[in-house]
């Protein structure tokens, strides 16, 4: 056979075998989700009920209490009157333009996502900092999580858990968790070697070293990671709304399909306002806890 067609067109695998591969994988995964879907769903049940409870709490509390609470929290975190006033005014505007409920829904899911991302991300970051092997395994996974289009990993999640809050939550966390992991790892690795050596020389155990020296000194970097995580979680709300997460994302989605320019813009601005508030408040808080880095009198 002197067939030289492979020189001109790429020697692809047989269509039939590709179909077979797809069929087997899809079938296996369908089988898996049919088998274990309920079990896995039940694992997430406590989380789901917490999410619903938290959302209801925000929605059922009178709006002015939530408004004052948010303003108060921003002030406590940042100790800045300017920022607290900005928070108050922007929340008032959001409510006035009829986006209060959606904003509360978004706020609740973002808050839960952020706490989960921190709770999962920091231990992973610590493990990465302690072992080069863990780092070399986790880093490519983080790369995939950050670059893989969100829709692609939404497919299996939706297949497994259906449409709703939990799949949305998982999608948001997958997308938003890498910064906190990466920066926890980086922050701990950047801790001055001599300071760490001093801690060891005085006989501190690995746990004492971690909690007393490494984490406090890595805190500025870790806080930057948390900040990034919050931002990325907020940017995911529109995509999450495609799989049934209610909130500011849904009106945006509706605006895209129906070409409602103003509705989209207003909801977009509400997301931006939330993002800026989260960002400024968390950064100001981080700065305030790092008192020792400031006001250097002389060196």
């Amino acid at each position, binding site marked *: 056979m002197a067939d030289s067609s492979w020189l001109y067109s790429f020697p692809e695998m047989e269509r039939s075998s590709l179909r077979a591969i797809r069929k087997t994988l899809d079938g296996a995964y369908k089988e898996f989700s049919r088998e274990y879907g309920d079990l896995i769903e039940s694992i997430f049940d406590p989380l789901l009920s917490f999410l619903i409870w938290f959302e209801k709490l925000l929605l059922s509390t009178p709006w002015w209490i939530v408004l004052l609470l948010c303003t108060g929290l921003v002030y406590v975190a940042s100790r800045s009157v300017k920022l607290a006033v900005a928070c108050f005014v922007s929340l008032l505007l959001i409510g006035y333009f009829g986006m209060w409920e959606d904003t509360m829904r978004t706020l609740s899911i973002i808050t839960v996502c952020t706490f989960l991302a921190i709770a999962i991300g920091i231990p992973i970051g610590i493990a990465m900092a302690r072992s080069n092997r863990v780092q070399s395994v986790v880093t490519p996974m983080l790369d995939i999580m950050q670059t893989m289009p969100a829709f692609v990993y939404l497919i299996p999640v939706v297949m497994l858990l259906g449409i709703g809050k939990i799949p949305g939550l998982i999608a948001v966390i997958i997308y938003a968790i890498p910064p906190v992991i990466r920066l926890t790892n980086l922050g701990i690795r950047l801790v*001055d070697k001599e300071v760490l050596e*001093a801690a*060891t*020389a*005085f*006989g501190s155990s690995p746990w004492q070293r971690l909690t007393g020296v490494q984490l406090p000194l890595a805190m500025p970097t870790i806080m930057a990671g948390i900040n990034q995580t919050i931002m990325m979680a907020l940017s995911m709300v529109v995509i999450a709304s495609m799989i049934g997460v209610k909130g500011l994302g849904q009106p945006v989605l509706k605006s895209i399909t129906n070409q409602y320019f103003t509705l989209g813009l207003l909801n977009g601005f509400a997301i931006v306002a939330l993002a800026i508030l989260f960002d400024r408040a968390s950064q100001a808080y981080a700065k305030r806890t790092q008192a020792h*880095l400031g*006001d250097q*009198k002389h060196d």
Partner: protein
Amino acid sequence: MTESVIKISGLYKIFGPNPKKVLPMIAEGLSKDEILEKTGHTVGLKDINLEIKKAEIFVIMGLSGSGKSTLIRHFNRLIDPTEGKIVVEGTNIMEFGVHELQEFRRHKMSMVFQRFGLFPHKKVIANVAYGLEIQKIDKAERLAKASEWVETVGLKGYEEQYPSQLSGGQQQRVGLARALCTDAEILLMDEAFSALDPLIRSEMQDQLIDLQETLQKTIIFITHDLDEALRLGDRIAILKDGELVQQGTPDEILLEPANDYVEAFVKDVNRARALTVETVMQRPAMRITAATIEGALAQMRKSTHDYGYHITKDGFQGIITEKELESAVSLETSGAIHPDIYEDVPTVSPESAIEDVLTETISSDYSLPVVDSEGNFKGSLEKESVAEIFSEKSSSEKESTATEKESTTTEKESSS
């Protein structure tokens, strides 16, 4: 003499992926460079044997890359040796498990670092109390103890500051207080004063010497500065390319450098400050022990000298010249030697630095008598030997000084 607190024997440290494999190559006598070229392993330390005595300041000196910082980290096992034994107070610390090692570091040894190694997020007082915090000592108790040490190092009033608000010298005082606060008997100081400017450095050296007088700790001090080594050290070990070149007292290092390397080091040292009268004085040329002028003159005439040192059982009396004796005899004021005939010459103490007695030595016509605090005559300080300290010596001359030195040491031993 005093017992040894730390004993290190046959210590090797090789850096690289498979250090054990390289050990036999060192035994075969391959050099550091050859091993690096052949295997990619760096020989950090090679056959180190040390004994450190209780309550002495033991200085390990070497240039950068000589392995001195690696060596000091073996004392508390911040670095583990490739091979060798480290015995502290009779216990082989190489056999310690994780927990025992932690306890050992908490109670037996503490460390001061070159770049201070302070915790930037803790206030001065919390930094000093860190060692006690690790030992889980009650907060009130550890803060009370820490504030005592803060005061001792002269930082009272700075307790609530952060390290970044202090100057370099103040920061290292915090480092020193932190190390002393755990009451560990052994203090490791890794180039503790090298990052400070010269004035602050000598201030800190003084403070360390003062503290050591009352505390009597065993201190291992690392430095690259020979002046500092000579000033602080009871004994000095010189490290070059991971090997111990010479160990000894400051005087031994200065006067009998073991090889060219040490000699090159020693050349730049201000010897007049580092050496004491005791180490350069000579066996007295002429002792006059007679009680009468006639007897003294008789003794003097028998010798080739034209002056002598008059000694009685009460110790050194004065310098008498032959001329003076002869005129006394001719004036027929015979009998006991009268204090009037002594030459007007100052005496020097054996412990003074050469620098301090320089003017007297040079302005006097005679070799100055060296007399200790009890009035005993120890020897004489010749102008020539003082001048030699300052002159750039060729190696042949050096040998002659070395032999002279031997005679002085035997003299010292016999007189004491």
